[in-house]
């Protein structure tokens, strides 16, 4: 039992804090948000130059091979700074392309590590539950696999060289890679709460590369994305809580800091408990994934805590700040918008609770 970070993990945290911290001042974020896409190309290149984009990729593909748990530390820092960089879709997708795709994708993965290529994963469908079988269909002919179906809220799809997509084959669910720039893919931009560029993606007989037809691989991909979102939520919630603590310690009413009212102090203390719980269950899930152990229950648990904690911490933070908390000139609002986004990404608390409940039923029914 050891809850400490290794030396290399501490180095990753420090490096990430240094690069992200320098470039996520409110003025810098505001400039990026005036662009068509909330994506900081320069920051992305700086992360590539530091080696952080390859933190979990193998050395053969230009990475550091530090594993999923260490990748999560980078993702947490992105959450803590709400940096406009798509670490989750690109880096988690890359990890699975490497694990399942093998050497055929070596040059794509090397380009991910150097910041030249972006990837994404499509996990949601309109009208389908995240953890159920997708309605997107895959059919094989002489030329290979073709996909028909619709995916929604696909991050950064317009800029990607490839998108990982789960689809239903005759033999069961399988994971594919599609090129979103081909004619058979229609992308429509969706404006979403957190302002990340997301897309409605329609696949109409799109040529696809099969990555795995093993159901467990599709589950592992979903688990990793789920835990990545939970990890980002840890960073987002931790920062909202600390902003609330420092703001209420400064803000005076009735001649005293408002933090001295127990009603305020206790609300922030409850955020502390939520963040601690969210952090611990997320670390547990990340650690299991890192070791290649079964992680679905832990991932669901982490996502349920994500859904609950993001909502509660965000609402408490806005509340104890008063009006300033919802003012777009004060930095809290970005965290609140991301909190909302993360709450519903990769499955809501209600859906994940139902899913976990079914798993408990089968665990106890012999």
């Amino acid at each position: 039992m050891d809850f400490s970070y290794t030396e290399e993990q501490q180095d990753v945290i420090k490096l990430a804090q240094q690069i992200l911290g320098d470039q996520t001042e409110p003025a810098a974020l505001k400039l990026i948000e005036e662009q068509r896409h909330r994506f900081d190309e320069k920051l992305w290149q700086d992360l590539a130059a530091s080696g952080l984009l390859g933190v979990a990729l193998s050395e053969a593909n230009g990475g550091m091979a530090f594993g999923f748990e260490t990748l999560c530390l980078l993702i947490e820092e992105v959450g803590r700074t709400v940096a406009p960089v798509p670490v989750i879709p690109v880096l988690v997708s890359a990890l699975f392309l490497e694990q399942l795709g093998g050497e055929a994708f070596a040059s794509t993965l090397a380009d991910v590590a150097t910041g030249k290529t972006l990837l994404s994963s499509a996990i949601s469908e309109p009208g389908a539950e995240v953890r159920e079988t997708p309605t997107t269909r895959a059919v094989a002919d002489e030329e290979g696999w073709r996909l028909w179906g619709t995916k929604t809220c696909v991050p950064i799809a317009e800029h990607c060289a490839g998108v990982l997509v789960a689809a239903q084959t005759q033999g069961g669910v399988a994971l594919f890679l599609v090129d979103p720039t081909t004619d058979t893919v229609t992308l429509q931009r969706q404006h979403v709460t957190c302002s990340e560029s997301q897309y409605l993606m329609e696949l109409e007989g799109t040529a696809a590369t099969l990555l795995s037809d093993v159901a467990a691989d599709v589950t592992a991909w979903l688990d990793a994305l789920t835990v990545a979102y939970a990890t980002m939520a840890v960073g987002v919630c931790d920062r909202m809580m600390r902003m609330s603590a420092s703001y209420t310690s400064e803000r005076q009413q009735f001649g005293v800091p408002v933090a001295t009212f127990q009603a305020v102090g206790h609300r922030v203390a409850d955020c502390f408990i939520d963040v601690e719980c969210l952090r611990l269950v997320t670390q547990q899930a990340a650690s299991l994934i890192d070791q290649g152990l079964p992680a679905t229950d832990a991932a669901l648990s982490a996502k349920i805590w994500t859904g609950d904690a993001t909502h509660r911490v965000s609402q408490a933070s806005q509340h104890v700040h008063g009006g300033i908390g919802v003012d777009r000139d004060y930095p809290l609002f970005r965290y609140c918008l991301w909190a909302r986004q993360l709450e519903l990404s990769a499955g809501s608390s209600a859906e994940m609770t139902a899913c976990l409940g079914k798993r408990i039923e089968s665990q106890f029914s012999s």
Partner: protein
Amino acid sequence: MKIEFTDTQKALQTEVREYMRDIVTDDLREEMKNPEYFEGGGPVFREKFARMGRDGWIALSWPSALGGREATPMEQYIFTEEVMASGFPYPFLTTDAVGPVLAEHGSASIRDEVVKTILQGETVVAIGYSEPGAGTDLASLTTRAKRDGDDWVINGQKMWTSLANFADYIWLAARTDPDESKKHKGLTMFLIPADTPGFSHTPVWTLGVRTNATYYENLRIPDRYRVGEVNRGWKLITGQLNRERLSLVNHGPVEALYRRTAQWAAETALSDGSMLISRPWVQHNLARVKVGLDALRMMCLKQAWAMTEGALGMAEASAAKVYGTEFFVELYRLLLEIMGQSGVICADSPGAVLQGDIEHRYRVGSILTFGGGCNEIQRDIISAAGLWMPRAER
């Protein structure tokens, strides 16, 4: 980060689990059905507790100089979890809170007379802190100890002195300096043998368990029963608090309740022949419990690890106390909802589910949210020590 037990830790877990099967026998369970003996004190309990002493378990985390095995806080946590999950009413406050303080600060005669017998499982100590007028503001207590030659004469009343009906000693906080400005600095600790003339107790029946009011009327004891320096008792009270808080919110026993309820729901058929666990609302409650348990387990393990590393934070200890105690009540509620109407049937009545264990737990559940340092004070500690927020004057 490695969030699994080592092989040695797993071996200890198995060893304690198997050992406790021989301790919690049917005759002990039968004895504990008597409300007087629910928290121990009966002859079977005495016999089993002494056996645990003889077998070296009580001394598990004690220093080797006192015959202990010097287990780490992580190992002690594993032991605690298994003992609590077994249902044995092990007096942790005696063995792990008061005992070590007596060993460190007690007089030579206390060390010979009491510490040795604690380690042998022959002694139970009740805690005499709270008073009718001193609860959360404990340092305002008024039980008075006056020096008289080589003796002390004690007068006052304590409340919620659990186990006092069978304890061998009372670990008593008394005021030795009546100067009001010296609130925390006027308290001294005493160990009162329960057979001392002037000591008496009356039962207080709470929602779920028996506790006691205890009375000290011109109770005279020799100075050798004083523990620590005169007027320096406060730090003996507060020194072990973080450690004690962790033992309040142990994960093992509630995990066992979750498993038993899920198993029961999987084996209980409804009138249409389907099993209760097939119902979405049942699955919802079980999943909610599981998710809460995951966080509790990680919190407990992290704290045991932090203690082993000598780095337990105050805010984290308080966060675990608040989260754990409030989650317990929620967990009992969610599990009892699964039982529905049967959730109110008490132990030994026809139709009781899981021997009425959770029906009873629900009734005692609230004690921990205000006992052991009430949760409002814990939240104050979290915001001040964890987030550096200023506090109002008290």
